[in-house]
Protein backbone atom coordinates (compact mmCIF):
# COMPACT_ATOMS: atom_id res chain seq x y z
CA UNK A 1 0.00 0.00 0.00
CA UNK A 2 1.21 3.50 -0.81
CA UNK A 3 0.03 5.79 1.92
CA UNK A 4 -2.08 8.78 0.97
CA UNK A 5 -0.41 11.81 2.53
CA UNK A 6 -3.05 14.33 1.51
CA UNK A 7 -5.71 15.93 3.67
CA UNK A 8 -8.41 18.52 3.16
CA UNK A 9 -7.78 21.23 5.71
CA UNK A 10 -8.51 24.94 5.85
CA UNK A 11 -10.73 24.44 2.80
CA UNK A 12 -7.84 23.27 0.67
CA UNK A 13 -6.21 20.07 -0.50
CA UNK A 14 -2.92 19.78 1.36
CA UNK A 15 -0.90 16.97 -0.16
CA UNK A 16 1.66 16.50 2.61
CA UNK A 17 1.45 17.12 6.35
CA UNK A 18 4.99 18.55 6.42
CA UNK A 19 5.73 22.28 6.13
CA UNK A 20 8.79 24.45 6.59
CA UNK A 21 8.59 26.62 9.71
CA UNK A 22 8.52 30.38 9.74
CA UNK A 23 11.93 31.97 10.18
CA UNK A 24 13.81 28.96 8.88
CA UNK A 25 12.92 29.05 5.19
CA UNK A 26 12.93 32.75 4.28
CA UNK A 27 10.21 33.32 1.72
CA UNK A 28 10.78 29.96 0.09
CA UNK A 29 13.13 31.11 -2.64
CA UNK A 30 16.37 30.16 -0.89
CA UNK A 31 15.25 26.57 -0.39
CA UNK A 32 13.86 26.15 -3.89
CA UNK A 33 17.38 25.46 -5.17
CA UNK A 34 17.98 22.83 -2.52
CA UNK A 35 14.77 20.87 -2.08
CA UNK A 36 11.66 20.23 -4.17
CA UNK A 37 9.20 22.44 -2.27
CA UNK A 38 6.23 20.95 -4.12
CA UNK A 39 7.02 17.56 -2.56
CA UNK A 40 6.15 18.86 0.89
CA UNK A 41 2.96 20.49 2.14
CA UNK A 42 4.34 23.99 1.83
CA UNK A 43 5.93 26.76 3.84
CA UNK A 44 5.23 29.26 6.58
CA UNK A 45 7.03 32.42 5.49
CA UNK A 46 9.34 34.55 7.50
CA UNK A 47 7.36 37.14 9.47
CA UNK A 48 5.99 40.09 7.55
CA UNK A 49 5.45 43.41 9.32
CA UNK A 50 4.05 46.67 7.95
CA UNK A 51 7.43 48.39 7.83
CA UNK A 52 10.75 46.70 7.04
CA UNK A 53 12.59 45.71 10.21
CA UNK A 54 16.36 45.73 10.56
CA UNK A 55 16.65 43.17 13.32
CA UNK A 56 19.00 42.71 16.26
CA UNK A 57 22.77 43.11 16.61
CA UNK A 58 24.94 39.94 16.42
CA UNK A 59 25.43 37.35 17.63
CA UNK A 60 21.95 36.43 16.54
CA UNK A 61 22.30 32.65 16.69
CA UNK A 62 24.25 30.13 18.72
CA UNK A 63 24.19 26.40 19.20
CA UNK A 64 22.79 25.13 22.50
CA UNK A 65 22.65 21.59 23.90
CA UNK A 66 20.31 19.76 21.55
CA UNK A 67 19.25 22.88 19.74
CA UNK A 68 19.95 26.50 19.06
CA UNK A 69 19.04 29.93 20.33
CA UNK A 70 18.15 32.82 18.08
CA UNK A 71 17.29 36.47 18.42
CA UNK A 72 17.01 37.69 14.85
CA UNK A 73 14.59 40.46 15.78
CA UNK A 74 12.01 39.70 13.08
CA UNK A 75 14.19 41.26 10.40
CA UNK A 76 12.05 41.34 7.27
CA UNK A 77 11.50 43.21 4.04
CA UNK A 78 8.19 44.76 5.09
CA UNK A 79 4.76 44.48 3.50
CA UNK A 80 5.39 46.36 0.25
CA UNK A 81 8.50 44.44 -0.76
CA UNK A 82 6.95 41.19 0.39
CA UNK A 83 4.12 41.79 -2.05
CA UNK A 84 6.20 43.02 -4.97
CA UNK A 85 9.08 40.54 -4.68
CA UNK A 86 8.36 37.57 -2.45
CA UNK A 87 4.67 36.90 -2.99
CA UNK A 88 5.10 37.25 -6.74
CA UNK A 89 7.83 34.63 -6.65
CA UNK A 90 5.72 32.29 -4.50
CA UNK A 91 2.70 32.65 -6.80
CA UNK A 92 4.79 31.93 -9.87
CA UNK A 93 6.97 29.12 -8.56
CA UNK A 94 4.94 26.95 -6.22
CA UNK A 95 2.34 24.61 -7.55
CA UNK A 96 1.09 22.11 -4.98
CA UNK A 97 2.91 23.59 -1.98
CA UNK A 98 0.68 25.78 0.18
CA UNK A 99 1.87 29.05 1.66
CA UNK A 100 0.95 30.57 4.99
CA UNK A 101 2.17 34.12 5.49
CA UNK A 102 3.48 34.71 9.00
CA UNK A 103 2.27 38.11 10.20
CA UNK A 104 3.71 40.21 12.99
CA UNK A 105 2.77 43.58 14.46
CA UNK A 106 3.11 45.77 17.51
CA UNK A 107 -0.52 46.82 17.56
CA UNK A 108 -3.76 45.23 16.39
CA UNK A 109 -3.84 47.88 13.68
CA UNK A 110 -0.45 46.81 12.32
CA UNK A 111 -1.57 43.20 12.01
CA UNK A 112 -4.73 44.39 10.26
CA UNK A 113 -2.75 46.55 7.86
CA UNK A 114 -0.63 43.59 6.77
CA UNK A 115 -3.69 41.41 6.30
CA UNK A 116 -5.65 43.99 4.36
CA UNK A 117 -2.61 44.55 2.14
CA UNK A 118 -2.37 40.86 1.33
CA UNK A 119 -5.88 39.51 1.46
CA UNK A 120 -6.96 39.93 -2.17
CA UNK A 121 -3.67 38.70 -3.65
CA UNK A 122 -2.64 35.35 -5.09
CA UNK A 123 0.17 33.11 -3.96
CA UNK A 124 -0.85 32.06 -0.46
CA UNK A 125 -3.52 30.14 1.39
CA UNK A 126 -3.72 31.73 4.82
CA UNK A 127 -2.08 33.50 7.70
CA UNK A 128 -0.05 32.40 10.65
CA UNK A 129 -0.18 35.06 13.34
CA UNK A 130 2.95 35.54 15.44
CA UNK A 131 1.77 36.69 18.87
CA UNK A 132 5.15 36.38 20.57
CA UNK A 133 6.20 39.96 20.08
CA UNK A 134 5.76 42.81 22.53
CA UNK A 135 2.66 44.92 22.18
CA UNK A 136 3.85 48.51 22.01
CA UNK A 137 1.13 50.00 24.16
CA UNK A 138 1.16 47.78 27.19
CA UNK A 139 4.59 46.26 26.77
CA UNK A 140 3.02 42.82 27.18
CA UNK A 141 2.94 40.18 24.50
CA UNK A 142 -0.33 39.43 22.76
CA UNK A 143 0.40 35.77 23.20
CA UNK A 144 0.71 35.92 27.00
CA UNK A 145 -2.21 38.25 27.74
CA UNK A 146 -5.63 36.63 27.58
CA UNK A 147 -7.53 39.84 26.87
CA UNK A 148 -5.07 41.18 24.30
CA UNK A 149 -5.03 37.83 22.49
CA UNK A 150 -8.84 37.61 22.35
CA UNK A 151 -9.02 41.19 21.02
CA UNK A 152 -6.39 40.52 18.39
CA UNK A 153 -7.87 37.28 17.08
CA UNK A 154 -11.42 38.68 17.08
CA UNK A 155 -10.26 41.71 15.12
CA UNK A 156 -8.29 39.67 12.59
CA UNK A 157 -11.16 37.23 12.17
CA UNK A 158 -13.30 40.15 11.07
CA UNK A 159 -10.60 41.26 8.63
CA UNK A 160 -10.25 38.08 6.58
CA UNK A 161 -12.04 34.97 5.46
CA UNK A 162 -8.78 33.20 4.76
CA UNK A 163 -7.50 30.52 7.13
CA UNK A 164 -6.27 32.18 10.31
CA UNK A 165 -3.74 30.19 12.31
CA UNK A 166 -2.43 31.51 15.62
CA UNK A 167 1.11 30.53 16.61
CA UNK A 168 1.00 29.93 20.35
CA UNK A 169 3.81 30.87 22.67
CA UNK A 170 4.88 28.36 25.34
CA UNK A 171 5.66 31.20 27.73
CA UNK A 172 2.41 30.82 29.70
CA UNK A 173 1.24 28.73 32.65
CA UNK A 174 -1.31 26.75 30.62
CA UNK A 175 -1.13 26.80 26.85
CA UNK A 176 -4.59 25.23 26.80
CA UNK A 177 -6.17 28.44 28.09
CA UNK A 178 -4.67 30.41 25.21
CA UNK A 179 -5.52 27.75 22.66
CA UNK A 180 -9.16 27.93 23.74
CA UNK A 181 -9.18 31.74 23.57
CA UNK A 182 -7.97 31.53 19.96
CA UNK A 183 -10.67 29.05 19.02
CA UNK A 184 -13.41 31.00 20.76
CA UNK A 185 -12.23 34.21 19.05
CA UNK A 186 -12.58 32.68 15.60
CA UNK A 187 -9.19 31.19 14.74
CA UNK A 188 -9.18 28.35 12.19
CA UNK A 189 -6.06 26.66 13.48
CA UNK A 190 -3.20 26.71 15.97
CA UNK A 191 0.55 26.35 15.59
CA UNK A 192 2.02 24.74 18.69
CA UNK A 193 4.58 25.84 19.67
CA UNK A 194 6.90 28.84 19.28
CA UNK A 195 10.44 28.96 20.70
CA UNK A 196 11.19 28.99 24.41
CA UNK A 197 12.86 32.03 25.97
CA UNK A 198 16.48 31.31 26.78
CA UNK A 199 19.88 32.78 27.42
CA UNK A 200 23.50 31.78 26.86
CA UNK A 201 26.37 33.46 28.69
CA UNK A 202 29.95 33.65 27.45
CA UNK A 203 31.78 32.87 30.67
CA UNK A 204 35.08 34.35 29.48
CA UNK A 205 33.68 37.77 28.64
CA UNK A 206 30.89 37.39 31.25
CA UNK A 207 28.48 38.81 28.71
CA UNK A 208 25.35 37.38 27.14
CA UNK A 209 26.45 35.55 24.01
CA UNK A 210 23.42 36.76 22.05
CA UNK A 211 23.36 40.42 21.03
CA UNK A 212 19.77 40.76 22.22
CA UNK A 213 20.84 39.13 25.53
CA UNK A 214 18.02 36.57 25.40
CA UNK A 215 16.53 34.64 22.52
CA UNK A 216 14.26 31.78 21.53
CA UNK A 217 15.40 28.19 21.95
CA UNK A 218 14.48 25.68 19.26
CA UNK A 219 15.62 22.29 18.06
CA UNK A 220 15.33 18.73 19.38
CA UNK A 221 15.69 19.99 22.96
CA UNK A 222 12.12 21.32 22.81
CA UNK A 223 10.53 18.32 21.09
CA UNK A 224 8.79 17.01 24.25
CA UNK A 225 7.53 20.48 25.13
CA UNK A 226 6.07 20.95 21.67
CA UNK A 227 4.39 17.55 21.79
CA UNK A 228 2.98 18.44 25.20
CA UNK A 229 1.66 21.81 23.99
CA UNK A 230 0.02 20.07 21.02
CA UNK A 231 -1.58 17.45 23.25
CA UNK A 232 -2.74 20.12 25.72
CA UNK A 233 -4.24 22.27 22.96
CA UNK A 234 -5.93 19.19 21.47
CA UNK A 235 -7.58 18.41 24.79
CA UNK A 236 -9.41 21.72 24.90
CA UNK A 237 -9.99 22.70 21.25
CA UNK A 238 -11.20 21.06 18.06
CA UNK A 239 -9.60 23.24 15.35
CA UNK A 240 -6.61 21.84 13.40
CA UNK A 241 -3.23 22.03 15.13
CA UNK A 242 0.08 22.38 13.37
CA UNK A 243 2.74 20.76 15.54
CA UNK A 244 6.13 22.43 15.71
CA UNK A 245 9.22 22.13 17.83
CA UNK A 246 12.28 19.95 17.41
CA UNK A 247 11.09 17.75 14.55
CA UNK A 248 13.99 16.05 12.73
CA UNK A 249 12.30 13.09 11.08
CA UNK A 250 9.13 11.13 10.55
CA UNK A 251 9.22 9.51 13.98
CA UNK A 252 9.34 12.91 15.69
CA UNK A 253 6.49 14.11 13.48
CA UNK A 254 4.34 11.06 14.25
CA UNK A 255 4.53 11.98 17.96
CA UNK A 256 2.92 15.31 17.08
CA UNK A 257 0.30 13.64 14.90
CA UNK A 258 -0.60 11.21 17.68
CA UNK A 259 -0.80 14.10 20.14
CA UNK A 260 -3.38 15.71 17.88
CA UNK A 261 -1.60 17.73 15.21
CA UNK A 262 -2.94 17.47 11.64
CA UNK A 263 0.16 19.06 10.14
CA UNK A 264 3.72 19.66 11.32
CA UNK A 265 6.44 22.19 10.68
CA UNK A 266 10.13 21.39 10.37
CA UNK A 267 12.34 24.29 11.46
CA UNK A 268 15.81 24.18 12.93
CA UNK A 269 16.47 20.70 11.54
CA UNK A 270 16.56 22.18 8.02
CA UNK A 271 19.73 24.02 9.02
CA UNK A 272 21.37 20.74 9.93
CA UNK A 273 20.14 19.06 6.77
CA UNK A 274 18.14 20.93 4.10
CA UNK A 275 16.47 17.61 3.25
CA UNK A 276 14.99 17.30 6.76
CA UNK A 277 11.44 18.23 5.71
CA UNK A 278 11.43 15.90 2.70
CA UNK A 279 12.86 13.14 4.90
CA UNK A 280 10.18 13.83 7.51
CA UNK A 281 7.50 13.46 4.83
CA UNK A 282 9.03 10.15 3.74
CA UNK A 283 9.35 9.00 7.34
CA UNK A 284 5.66 9.64 8.05
CA UNK A 285 4.74 7.79 4.86
CA UNK A 286 6.84 4.80 5.86
CA UNK A 287 5.20 4.78 9.31
CA UNK A 288 1.72 4.81 7.75
CA UNK A 289 2.66 1.96 5.44
CA UNK A 290 4.33 -0.07 8.17
CA UNK A 291 1.25 0.24 10.37
CA UNK A 292 -1.29 0.07 7.51
CA UNK A 293 -2.99 3.17 8.81
CA UNK A 294 -4.40 6.27 7.10
CA UNK A 295 -3.00 9.67 7.97
CA UNK A 296 -6.41 10.87 9.15
CA UNK A 297 -6.66 7.88 11.51
CA UNK A 298 -3.34 8.76 13.06
CA UNK A 299 -4.19 12.35 13.99
CA UNK A 300 -5.00 12.44 17.70
CA UNK A 301 -4.86 8.64 17.90
CA UNK A 302 -2.91 8.71 21.14
CA UNK A 303 -3.83 5.74 23.29
CA UNK A 304 -4.75 6.89 26.81
CA UNK A 305 -5.02 10.57 25.86
CA UNK A 306 -6.23 11.60 29.30
CA UNK A 307 -9.21 13.71 30.10
CA UNK A 308 -9.78 17.40 29.71
CA UNK A 309 -8.86 19.23 32.89
Amino acid sequence: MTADMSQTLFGAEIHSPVFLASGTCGYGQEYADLIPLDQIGGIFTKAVSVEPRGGNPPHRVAETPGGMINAIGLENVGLDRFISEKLVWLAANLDRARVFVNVVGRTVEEYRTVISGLDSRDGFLGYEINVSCPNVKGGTMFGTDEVALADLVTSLRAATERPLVIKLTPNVADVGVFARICEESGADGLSAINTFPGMVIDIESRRPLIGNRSGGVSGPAILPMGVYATWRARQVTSIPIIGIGGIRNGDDAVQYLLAGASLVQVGTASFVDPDAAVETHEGIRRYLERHSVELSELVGALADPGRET
Partner: protein
Amino acid sequence: MLGFGLGAPGTWLLPRPFSVGWRADDGRVGILLRVFGAGTRALGRLVPGDEALLLGPLGQPFTLDPGRRIECVAGGVGLAPFIFLAAVEAAAGRRVRLLYGERTGPAVFDLDLLGELTGHDPEVFTEDGSVGTPGRVTAGLDPASDALLFGCGPTPMLRALAALAAETGRDLQVSVEEHMGCGIGTCQGCVVRSADGRWVRSCIEGPVFDASALRWDGS
Protein backbone atom coordinates in the same frame (compact mmCIF):
# COMPACT_ATOMS: atom_id res chain seq x y z
CA MET B 1 28.76 24.31 5.75
CA LEU B 2 30.04 21.06 7.21
CA GLY B 3 28.15 18.92 9.69
CA PHE B 4 26.83 15.45 10.33
CA GLY B 5 23.34 15.93 9.00
CA LEU B 6 20.53 14.19 10.83
CA GLY B 7 21.53 10.67 9.94
CA ALA B 8 23.58 9.71 12.95
CA PRO B 9 21.26 9.02 15.87
CA GLY B 10 22.09 10.72 19.13
CA THR B 11 24.01 13.57 17.58
CA TRP B 12 22.92 17.14 17.19
CA LEU B 13 25.22 19.62 15.61
CA LEU B 14 24.56 22.72 13.60
CA PRO B 15 26.81 22.72 10.55
CA ARG B 16 29.79 25.08 10.68
CA PRO B 17 31.08 27.30 7.91
CA PHE B 18 34.52 26.39 6.59
CA SER B 19 36.70 27.58 3.74
CA VAL B 20 37.83 25.18 1.08
CA GLY B 21 41.46 24.75 2.14
CA TRP B 22 42.86 22.82 -0.76
CA ARG B 23 41.90 20.62 -3.62
CA ALA B 24 43.48 17.29 -4.46
CA ASP B 25 43.83 15.98 -8.00
CA ASP B 26 41.32 13.19 -7.32
CA GLY B 27 38.52 15.68 -6.64
CA ARG B 28 38.70 15.59 -2.87
CA VAL B 29 38.78 18.88 -1.01
CA GLY B 30 40.71 19.67 2.15
CA ILE B 31 39.25 21.58 5.07
CA LEU B 32 41.41 23.17 7.72
CA LEU B 33 39.79 22.59 11.07
CA ARG B 34 40.98 23.71 14.48
CA VAL B 35 39.36 22.27 17.59
CA PHE B 36 37.76 25.11 19.57
CA GLY B 37 34.65 23.55 21.08
CA ALA B 38 32.38 20.55 21.00
CA GLY B 39 31.43 20.98 17.35
CA THR B 40 34.89 21.20 15.92
CA ARG B 41 36.00 18.43 18.28
CA ALA B 42 33.29 16.13 16.89
CA LEU B 43 34.12 17.05 13.30
CA GLY B 44 37.80 16.57 14.05
CA ARG B 45 37.14 12.98 15.03
CA LEU B 46 35.95 12.07 11.53
CA VAL B 47 38.00 9.28 10.02
CA PRO B 48 38.17 8.03 6.43
CA GLY B 49 34.92 6.27 5.54
CA ASP B 50 32.77 8.33 7.94
CA GLU B 51 29.87 10.27 6.48
CA ALA B 52 29.45 13.99 6.84
CA LEU B 53 27.16 16.51 5.19
CA LEU B 54 28.70 19.23 3.10
CA LEU B 55 26.66 22.11 1.69
CA GLY B 56 28.48 24.39 -0.67
CA PRO B 57 30.29 26.18 -2.05
CA LEU B 58 28.38 29.13 -0.63
CA GLY B 59 28.82 32.89 -0.56
CA GLN B 60 31.21 35.32 -2.18
CA PRO B 61 34.92 34.57 -2.66
CA PHE B 62 37.97 36.85 -2.69
CA THR B 63 38.09 38.74 -5.98
CA LEU B 64 41.41 38.72 -7.76
CA ASP B 65 42.53 41.65 -9.84
CA PRO B 66 44.51 40.29 -12.82
CA GLY B 67 48.02 41.63 -12.97
CA ARG B 68 47.88 43.04 -9.47
CA ARG B 69 50.04 41.67 -6.65
CA ILE B 70 48.28 40.08 -3.69
CA GLU B 71 49.19 40.02 -0.03
CA CYS B 72 47.29 37.53 2.09
CA VAL B 73 47.16 38.12 5.84
CA ALA B 74 46.05 35.09 7.81
CA GLY B 75 45.35 34.89 11.54
CA GLY B 76 45.14 31.40 12.99
CA VAL B 77 42.73 29.11 11.20
CA GLY B 78 42.00 32.06 8.89
CA LEU B 79 44.87 30.55 6.95
CA ALA B 80 42.47 28.15 5.22
CA PRO B 81 41.27 30.15 2.19
CA PHE B 82 44.80 31.35 1.44
CA ILE B 83 46.15 27.82 1.17
CA PHE B 84 43.71 27.33 -1.69
CA LEU B 85 44.37 30.75 -3.19
CA ALA B 86 48.16 30.45 -3.01
CA ALA B 87 48.04 26.98 -4.56
CA VAL B 88 45.88 28.17 -7.45
CA GLU B 89 48.19 31.12 -8.05
CA ALA B 90 51.29 28.91 -7.83
CA ALA B 91 49.79 26.52 -10.37
CA ALA B 92 49.31 29.48 -12.72
CA GLY B 93 52.95 30.47 -12.25
CA ARG B 94 52.17 33.46 -10.05
CA ARG B 95 53.30 34.33 -6.53
CA VAL B 96 51.41 35.88 -3.66
CA ARG B 97 52.79 37.16 -0.39
CA LEU B 98 51.44 34.94 2.38
CA LEU B 99 51.70 36.28 5.92
CA TYR B 100 50.53 33.88 8.60
CA GLY B 101 50.23 34.69 12.29
CA GLU B 102 49.52 32.63 15.39
CA ARG B 103 49.48 33.50 19.09
CA THR B 104 51.86 30.69 19.99
CA GLY B 105 54.36 28.44 18.28
CA PRO B 106 52.62 25.13 19.00
CA ALA B 107 49.55 26.38 17.13
CA VAL B 108 51.48 26.89 13.91
CA PHE B 109 50.35 24.65 11.04
CA ASP B 110 52.85 22.09 9.73
CA LEU B 111 55.05 24.38 7.65
CA ASP B 112 56.43 21.63 5.43
CA LEU B 113 52.92 20.54 4.56
CA LEU B 114 51.86 24.15 4.11
CA GLY B 115 54.73 24.67 1.65
CA GLU B 116 53.69 21.54 -0.21
CA LEU B 117 50.01 22.54 -0.37
CA THR B 118 50.58 26.15 -1.37
CA GLY B 119 53.77 26.05 -3.43
CA HIS B 120 54.76 29.05 -1.35
CA ASP B 121 56.98 29.77 1.65
CA PRO B 122 54.72 31.64 4.03
CA GLU B 123 56.10 34.31 6.35
CA VAL B 124 55.22 33.18 9.85
CA PHE B 125 54.66 35.40 12.89
CA THR B 126 53.96 34.32 16.46
CA GLU B 127 53.05 36.59 19.33
CA ASP B 128 55.09 34.47 21.75
CA GLY B 129 58.02 34.66 19.36
CA SER B 130 58.69 30.93 19.41
CA VAL B 131 58.30 30.40 15.66
CA GLY B 132 59.05 32.80 12.82
CA THR B 133 59.11 36.53 13.42
CA PRO B 134 57.99 37.65 16.90
CA GLY B 135 54.93 39.87 16.95
CA ARG B 136 51.63 40.29 15.21
CA VAL B 137 51.15 39.33 11.61
CA THR B 138 49.98 42.83 10.71
CA ALA B 139 53.45 44.16 11.68
CA GLY B 140 54.81 42.30 8.66
CA LEU B 141 53.03 44.52 6.17
CA ASP B 142 55.04 47.00 4.15
CA PRO B 143 53.36 50.42 4.50
CA ALA B 144 54.69 51.43 1.08
CA SER B 145 53.19 48.45 -0.76
CA ASP B 146 50.19 48.94 -3.01
CA ALA B 147 49.38 45.24 -3.38
CA LEU B 148 45.80 44.12 -3.01
CA LEU B 149 45.27 43.02 0.61
CA PHE B 150 43.26 39.96 1.59
CA GLY B 151 42.56 39.26 5.26
CA CYS B 152 41.08 36.29 7.09
CA GLY B 153 41.24 35.72 10.82
CA PRO B 154 39.84 36.89 14.16
CA THR B 155 37.77 40.07 14.12
CA PRO B 156 40.35 42.15 16.07
CA MET B 157 42.94 41.33 13.40
CA LEU B 158 40.53 42.25 10.62
CA ARG B 159 39.71 45.50 12.43
CA ALA B 160 43.43 46.36 12.63
CA LEU B 161 43.83 45.56 8.94
CA ALA B 162 40.81 47.69 8.07
CA ALA B 163 42.24 50.62 10.01
CA LEU B 164 45.57 50.23 8.23
CA ALA B 165 43.89 50.00 4.84
CA ALA B 166 41.78 53.08 5.55
CA GLU B 167 44.88 55.05 6.61
CA THR B 168 47.00 54.08 3.67
CA GLY B 169 44.25 53.96 1.06
CA ARG B 170 44.92 50.33 0.22
CA ASP B 171 42.30 48.00 -1.17
CA LEU B 172 41.40 45.32 1.37
CA GLN B 173 39.04 42.37 1.16
CA VAL B 174 38.23 40.52 4.37
CA SER B 175 36.56 37.21 5.10
CA VAL B 176 34.47 37.77 8.23
CA GLU B 177 33.58 35.38 11.01
CA GLU B 178 30.05 35.34 12.46
CA HIS B 179 27.89 32.60 13.95
CA MET B 180 25.96 31.03 11.10
CA GLY B 181 22.62 29.23 11.18
CA CYS B 182 21.64 28.05 7.74
CA GLY B 183 24.41 29.19 5.38
CA ILE B 184 21.93 29.93 2.59
CA GLY B 185 20.47 33.27 3.60
CA THR B 186 17.20 32.27 5.19
CA CYS B 187 17.78 32.68 8.92
CA GLN B 188 19.46 36.12 8.89
CA GLY B 189 21.60 34.89 11.77
CA CYS B 190 25.08 35.73 10.50
CA VAL B 191 24.79 39.45 9.87
CA VAL B 192 27.51 42.08 10.04
CA ARG B 193 27.02 45.84 9.87
CA SER B 194 27.56 47.49 6.50
CA ALA B 195 29.20 50.92 6.25
CA ASP B 196 25.80 52.44 5.50
CA GLY B 197 24.29 50.90 8.62
CA ARG B 198 22.41 47.91 7.20
CA TRP B 199 22.79 44.35 8.40
CA VAL B 200 24.26 42.19 5.66
CA ARG B 201 24.43 38.39 5.74
CA SER B 202 27.92 36.95 5.86
CA CYS B 203 26.67 33.74 4.23
CA ILE B 204 25.24 35.36 1.07
CA GLU B 205 26.63 38.87 0.65
CA GLY B 206 29.88 37.62 2.30
CA PRO B 207 31.82 36.11 3.87
CA VAL B 208 34.28 38.14 1.79
CA PHE B 209 33.56 41.85 1.81
CA ASP B 210 35.42 44.91 0.69
CA ALA B 211 36.61 46.23 4.07
CA SER B 212 35.39 49.71 3.20
CA ALA B 213 31.86 48.33 2.80
CA LEU B 214 31.71 47.34 6.49
CA ARG B 215 31.50 49.30 9.72
CA TRP B 216 34.40 48.57 12.04
CA ASP B 217 33.70 50.66 15.15
CA GLY B 218 31.19 48.22 16.58
CA SER B 219 28.27 50.66 16.25
